[in-house]
């Protein structure tokens, strides 16, 4: 360089400047040290687990407990890596791999507040998408669970970053790593594979910036409700998104990272878990903030007061086979919400004073259905020709909304099997739906002729000797429904 020269004064200035910064850094650290009394060790695994103690690996129920090993043959750096053998679906020891890595010892933990991300290098035996990797799960409060989903691994080592939604919260974290990965292929016949991760540690990258927290998928949701009703904001997904090296990375976050606020707590209050409780007639807006940044998305909930009970059934008990009603003795029911894999619908039996109802939320999430099953034993509906149920919809009805009811005959084995058992569905169009009032439906079983369960069941229900389930399907439109008095009867 031709135009540079020695200038000692500049150099001194620069050093002075650096020193000034350091002094201020020092002060910050000291302040923080008052709260942070736990080690701030960054590494989780380098060539062996770091600082986790002896009892730190806890597999999820149903997963293959031996899926994780230390591989001394393969490593990104050093001599060893973490190896995960994802089992085949038919593995008797568990049909997926998943676990938490938790610092050993009650009351232990790490201070992660000085970091901004969990990072690791990873590769797999074939290009594969693994379901979940994250941290913050300790099988205790699980307060700060953070998960990055659907991570694409290649057969080459690639560095992955999982941003911390708000590092200041993590002053004593035991759950340093969590993962869950299933095999590849159709449900029920997945094939396993192997993936490796190495140099697993928390880092202060400095390039994790521009936070964009989101609740309710970023939508401004308006919902009609009634006193006593509850709406779980966490169930519909809370996320934090950071721009890291120019690309967005989104993680699913626990509600504890957020601060929720209601504009009118007397109308609808919200707790630290994002559970909204409707208290009185009126309108309230629920918003959230994460680390000083207002989340995109809000809930405007309007209560019309108390929910009136559904009309009391009048048919004699002898004429009725009841699935769910306070007016009759119900047959044995296995569940009122199957919570099948991939299904987003939450809720089930709820109480309104003396009246029990079926309250389903997140009815438009994922596949948008909820199943009530009664196969122990199945029920013979050969001599019944109609089904009755009462339906209440809080939200406004849009032209595309619909509700489909599906009935499946489980067959003599009493097991509901796709592509084996017969079933039939019937759709109720938006023109027959009304918001904010109980609707009573009495439908002929002969009209349940549509294929159901995503075409898994068809053929209708002319044969009703071993009926086993009833499913309500939203068509991904309605976000919540209330159902009461489900029974079959003879006209």
């Amino acid at each position, binding site marked *: *360089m031709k*135009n540079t020269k020695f200038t000692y004064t500049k150099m001194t200035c620069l050093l002075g400047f650096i020193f000034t910064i*350091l002094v201020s850094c020092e002060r910050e650290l000291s302040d923080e*040290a008052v709260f942070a009394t736990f080690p701030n060790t960054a590494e989780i695994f380098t060539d062996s687990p770091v600082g986790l103690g002896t009892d730190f690996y806890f597999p999820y129920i149903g997963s293959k407990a031996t899926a994780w090993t230390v591989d001394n043959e393969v490593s990104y750096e050093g001599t060893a890596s973490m190896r995960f053998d994802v089992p085949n679906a038919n593995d008797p020891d568990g049909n997926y791999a998943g676990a938490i890595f938790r610092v050993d010892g009650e009351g232990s933990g790490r201070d992660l507040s000085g970091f901004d991300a969990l990072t690791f290098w990873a590769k797999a035996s074939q290009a594969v998408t693994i379901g979940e990797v994250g941290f913050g799960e300790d099988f205790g409060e699980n307060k700060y669970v953070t998960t990055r989903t659907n991570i694409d691994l290649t057969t080459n080592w690639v560095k992955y970053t999982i941003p911390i939604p708000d590092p200041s919260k993590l002053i004593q974290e035991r759950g340093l790593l969590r993962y869950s990965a299933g095999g590849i292929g159709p449900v029920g016949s997945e094939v396993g594979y192997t993936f490796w991760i190495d140099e697993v540690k928390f880092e202060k990258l400095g390039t994790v*910036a521009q936070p*964009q927290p989101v609740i309710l998928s970023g939508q401004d949701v308006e919902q009609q409700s009634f006193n006593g009703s509850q709406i779980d904001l966490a169930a519909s997904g809370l996320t934090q998104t950071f721009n890291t090296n*120019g*690309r967005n990375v989104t993680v699913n976050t626990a509600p504890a990272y957020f601060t929720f606020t209601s504009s009118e707590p007397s109308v609808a209050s919200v707790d630290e878990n994002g559970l909204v409780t409707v208290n009185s007639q009126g309108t309230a807006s629920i918003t959230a903030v994460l680390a000083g940044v207002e989340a995109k998305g809000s809930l405007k909930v309007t209560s019309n007061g108390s929910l009136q009970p559904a009309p009391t059934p009048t048919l004699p008990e002898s004429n009725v086979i009841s699935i769910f009603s306070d007016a009759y003795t119900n047959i044995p029911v296995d569940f009122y919400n199957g919570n099948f894999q991939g299904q987003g619908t939450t809720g089930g039996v709820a109480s309104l004073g003396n009246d029990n109802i079926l309250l389903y939320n997140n009815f438009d999430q994922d596949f948008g259905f909820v199943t009530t099953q009664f196969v122990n034993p199945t029920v013979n509906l050969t001599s019944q020709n109609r089904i009755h149920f009462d339906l209440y919809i809080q939200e406004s009805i849009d032209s595309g909304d619909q509700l489909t009811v599906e009935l499946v005959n489980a067959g003599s084995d009493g097991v509901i099997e796709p592509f084996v058992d017969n079933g039939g569905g019937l759709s109720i169009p938006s023109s027959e739906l009304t918001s904010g009032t109980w609707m009573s439906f009495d439908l002929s079983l002969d009209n349940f002729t549509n294929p159901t369960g995503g075409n898994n069941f068809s053929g209708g229900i002319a044969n009703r000797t071993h009926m086993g389930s009833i499913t309500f399907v939203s068509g991904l439109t309605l976000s919540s429904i209330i159902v009461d008095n489900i029974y079959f009867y003879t006209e």
Partner: protein
Amino acid sequence: MTKKHTYKIKELFISVLLIVSFFVISSCETNETQTVATFTELVMADEFDTDGAPNSTIWGYDIGTGQNGWGNNELQYYTDRTENVTVQNGVLIITAKQEQFEQSSYTSARLLTKGKFEQTYGRFEARIRLPYGQGIWPAFWLLGDDSNGTEVWPQIGEIDIMEYLGNEPSKIFGTVHGPGYSAGESISKSYILDNDRFDTGFHIFGIEWGPDYINFYVDDVLYNQITPEDVPGEWVFNQGPFYIILNVAVGGELPGAPNAETVFPQTMLVDYVRVYNRSN
């Protein structure tokens, strides 16, 4: 650069950082201590201390879309509206918005000192916090006067003190364009911040430009020098004069279009623009 260390022990922090700092300084240079700038005679400064429209004795505007999106198929329509350019709280704010305006899908602003402040040579410096996102393309640059249209680019010369693409928020680049070395053949060098980004805080971008050399610096790091030996054509930077341009482009050939992740509006904040001459 060795800033990737993590500091585990507080007591070591100071000494480690000092060593690191020394290393940063010496790594830019083989065996000499570096001085990023020596010109100290202030000849023009806008500190942006008066709220409202920028000082009209210093700044004019390019309005519209130019030819073919200012020669780069850029997507924005430049305006001088307050929504796109204003001074507030001690900073110049250039805002790129997503909105339908005069057949364009984005608006932004481009300020220039053409006919108001022009000179050859000097130390041109600005302190800026940059926007971010795919398709966002801000710049602080100099263009040679076209002598009332009798000379055309690239013969007039262009010195890009700072260009930046919003999808690479830790990197800026400094470039010269001239005859035989323009556009894709321009002479350029990038500077990457370690463990930091240009969109989360203010940084100083500058050149010190004299006969037969242009030095490029960011903050306290001199990261490039371009001389006539470095360009494959005529050195057009010993003539002039040149004027200053500040702009935020959206889309165009270099950055590509914004995508679903690009957040609008985006703002470039300029704390000051200063020009110094050699004092002796």
